[in-house]
């Protein structure tokens, strides 16, 4: 007995269609006219590379029906970039899509994009653009994109510092940074420890005091 029966699903959908509050699906009419005649689970075998599947016996049979890994030329560039710059991974990104047309808003003839934050993906796409349009080898294209990236990162940092100093000079008051808060918390912890230790020592003064030896008795 197969896990999913297509005709059974079709019948259950037909029963569902009879309910007055259910709207008809777009695909229902077509599938009802031409119902599936066999199970698709094991009939369609994906095209696979025999070099990747090097198993024998049952393993080969199992791995044939499992989906294969999708690879693109960007993957190597991404791995290389993030292996060289691991702290770029610590800059948070948003991967929830807005409309799915991010590539159409970008022109990779230059690195800085108006609608995209500067990240490792910019280096990857810029490298691909240089390879296709400038006929550069991969190494040179990657190096040029990387240097442009460094330039823009430094520019961003300098802009932020200048803006911070300007705002401060014009009267802005900033909250404490994480480091200053950390110093304060450390100092508060030390202060509380000192108070507790003082109280404990005061309460147990007799315990920690050595008894005095009466020397006059020993000489007599």
């Amino acid at each position, binding site marked *: 007995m197969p896990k999913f029966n297509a005709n059974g699903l079709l019948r259950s959908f037909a029963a569902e269609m009879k309910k007055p509050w259910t709207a008809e699906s777009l695909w229902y009419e077509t599938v009802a006219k031409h119902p599936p005649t066999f199970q698709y689970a094991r009939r369609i075998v994906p095209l696979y590379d025999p070099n990747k599947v090097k198993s024998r016996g049952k393993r080969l049979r199992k791995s044939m029906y499992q989906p294969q890994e999708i690879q693109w030329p960007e*993957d190597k560039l991404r791995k290389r970039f993030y292996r060289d710059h691991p*702290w770029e991974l610590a800059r*948070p990104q948003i991967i*929830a899509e807005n409309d799915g047309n*991010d590539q159409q808003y970008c022109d990779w003839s*230059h690195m800085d994009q*108006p609608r995209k934050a500067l990240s490792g993906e910019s280096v990857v796409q810029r490298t691909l653009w240089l390879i296709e349009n400038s006929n550069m080898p991969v190494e040179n294209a990657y190096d040029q994109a990387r240097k442009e990236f460094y330039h823009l990162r430094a520019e961003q940092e300098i802009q932020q510092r*200048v803006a911070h100093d300007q705002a401060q000079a014009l*009267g802005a008051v900033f909250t404490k940074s994480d480091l200053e808060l950390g110093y304060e918390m450390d100092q508060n912890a030390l202060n509380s420890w000192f108070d507790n230790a003082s109280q404990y020592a005061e309460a147990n003064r007799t315990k920690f005091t050595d008894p005095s030896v009466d020397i006059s008795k020993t000489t007599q």
Partner: protein
Amino acid sequence: MKFPDLLRCSRAVSLARPDLPRNSPDVYDTKIPILQAITAKKCQRFRGDWGAKRKLPILKNRHISIQKFDTFEHQCAFISSDRFVRTLKRIYDLKLPVPLNDYEQISPYLLQKYNTFSSSNPKSRPTLPPGILYAKLKLLDSFSDSEKKRLSLVSFIQTKKVPLPFTYGKFAPDSKECLFGVSGVIAATSLKGITSTKNRYVIRSLNVDETGKTIPNITRENRSI
């Protein structure tokens, strides 16, 4: 856009896939980030929509890393990555110096970006028109000596013992020079004129306008003399 490119150009696919060696330590105990830190807007986090294949529960963390988008148990495996994001922020809070060879070429355009969507393409950069006031403040107490020298080469305005009716920011009473909020006039419109140190202006004194505005008396200081 073609159909096969929809997956290739999506944001989820553009994440860096980790390539861990076999005897690598656990993802939780690494000292450098291995997985990409992911965040979401507040409305997205409320709905559990982090951009993954499935919805995630409502988390207190603001940054997570997705290990696998789909597992055999039909779950999305994710871990927290607040640690690395905070560490990177603290590294930036240290304010380490940024060495840059062509700082002079960049610095005239530092004030050009008024919004985050402006492009830094050189072709679309506007030329500086004459007569517009720009401010490039020099903070005397917050920079080191090397920074002072570097900034003095680029700054347009140099003040010399001019008393001000008001004080700004990090004004120190014992400092020899004081900060100036109102800027000078740029007479040059090309790159060469701006970046060169010959076009330096000196504020001699201050006057008050009929409407009460403070107007500086600026004279050009020629270095060839």
